[in-house]
């Protein structure tokens, strides 16, 4: 029993990390109707920025993260304006835009290696080491902290989407771009804001992934596995639902952990298998995800 609890806590901690990245995917999907395959690599780049601000510029870890989120916001907005918008949008040319995000994936990865090399970097510690005992199992400060950050992020996003004019405009643009623009919403600015926000939250997701990951540090590939989990989380929860991203992330984290611990042949080498299996099952059984809205097509 205490073993099970232990695995559960581990899984929740990891799941919270996947949820933060899944939230970025969901925000871009909700405002633009697009899947951003470069989301993980953007988060990786942001994590290098955080590391640079901390290690090389001497900022405190949290300040370095804040600075990185601000810069990432600008970079995200820039990418939308300069690389995405000229190519088209989800309605007119979805394939071209998806291909651009895949190109971005490769380009950002190469850029990070060119700037920072391939030697792993130690991420700035944002949570203290150690753990607390709960019902005979231990839960690390890292996991607790990640869950707390996730909770704050969800509340802030909920406020943004439901209580502010910008959030209302983002939802309007996602649902009906033309009518929103006719209502006076500057659609271009809203799209840039959506990409910027997703990139800034990606910086957060990247640092949480790095600090919860390998003790050796992170290199330019560390977000690629996390992106798969985030896709699984967003698919499970529903790509248009922030709540779904969070619940999906936690479920994916726990399921992946329990499968690796209890099913003998999965273990470490096949760790990603449950995530893929989950994506497939959800797409077959409930394509819109747990919390997503089913697409209604009027004919």
């Amino acid at each position: 029993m205490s073993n099970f609890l232990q695995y559960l806590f581990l899984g929740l901690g990891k799941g919270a990390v996947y949820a933060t990245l899944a939230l970025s995917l969901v925000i871009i999907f909700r405002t633009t109707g697009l899947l951003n395959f470069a989301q993980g690599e953007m988060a990786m780049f942001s994590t290098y920025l955080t590391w640079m601000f901390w290690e090389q510029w001497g900022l405190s870890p949290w300040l370095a993260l804040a600075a990185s989120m601000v810069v990432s916001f600008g970079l995200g907005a820039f990418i939308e304006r300069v690389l995405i918008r000229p190519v088209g949008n989800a309605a007119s040319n979805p394939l071209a835009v998806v291909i651009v995000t895949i190109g971005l994936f490769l380009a950002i990865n190469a850029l990070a290696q060119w700037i920072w090399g391939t030697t792993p970097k130690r991420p700035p510690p944002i949570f203290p080491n150690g753990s607390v005992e709960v019902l005979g199992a231990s839960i690390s400060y890292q996991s607790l902290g990640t869950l707390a950050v996730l909770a704050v992020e969800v509340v802030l996003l909920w406020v943004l989407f439901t209580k502010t004019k910008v959030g209302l405009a983002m939802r309007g643009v996602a649902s009906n771009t033309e009518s929103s623009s006719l209502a006076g919403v500057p659609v271009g600015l809203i799209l840039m804001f959506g990409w910027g926000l997703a990139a800034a939250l990606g910086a957060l997701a990247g640092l949480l992934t790095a600090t919860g990951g390998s003790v050796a540090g992170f290199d330019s590939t560390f977000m690629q596995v996390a992106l798969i989990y985030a896709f699984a989380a967003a698919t499970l929860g529903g790509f248009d639902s922030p709540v779904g991203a969070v619940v999906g992330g936690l479920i994916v984290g726990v399921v992946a952990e329990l499968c690796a611990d209890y099913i003998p042949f999965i273990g470490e080498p096949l760790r990603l298998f449950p995530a893929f299996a989950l994506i497939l099952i959800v797409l077959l059984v409930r394509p819109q995800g747990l919390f997503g809205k089913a697409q209604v097509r009027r004919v």
Partner: protein
Amino acid sequence: MTAAGDVPLAARSVAVADVLLRVTGLEAGYGPVQVLRGLDFVVGAGEVVVILGANGAGKTTTLRALSGMIDAKGERTLRGAGDGATEDVSLKGRRPEQLVKLGIAHVPQGRGTITDLTVEENLRLGAFTRRDKEVTSDIASWYEIFPRLGERQDQAAGSMSGGEQQMLAIARALMSKPRLVLLDEPSLGLAPLVTKELFERLGEINRTTGTAMLIVEQNANLALRIAARGYVLEAGGIVAQGTAAELRDDEAVRQAYLGY
């Protein structure tokens, strides 16, 4: 019969005292296809003007050009806002959200509501360009004008009937406090009784708020009932114009658009 009656409708230009929107030589199209071939027309302040025409004549294109949804050639100017302003403002090259700020609201054909948002959120989004504190009380007054919207304020707009959604689209457009509303086929897909009620409401709104309206409509009978003047559009050009009464009495217009 007066002298004016002897002049063919096509050659007549009606003097409008208080011009709000002036359009000269409007040309627009989609890609290589030119749809509008030089339209000249005006809408007076507080006036209801209807554009009649068959499918494909260019009615929707006209409205889309005016609200900045598509690029267009030709001058169009709107009288400056505010009491002191007398200078006309050119509308050329402006994006839809800038035109909303200048006072033009467009209710597009068929799907003017944002279906995933609630009724209340649609109305709030309609006030996106406003900075004043009266948005909430304005929403309440729309609920009085359209009680159905009040009953369904927390429901997704997409869950309502076509007529209710059209009322919402119109209220949403008027939330921006426009001086000119462009209405594209407001009766499309609505039952005759609903259409009749809709036009009565439009007439009321025009009388009480003084908002000018440019209406594109297949249902010419009802549209001419609330309109002061009208233009007939054929193959991208204006072929006739006159007061609502003149158009109703014109033999050719009656046969082509009124169906009797």
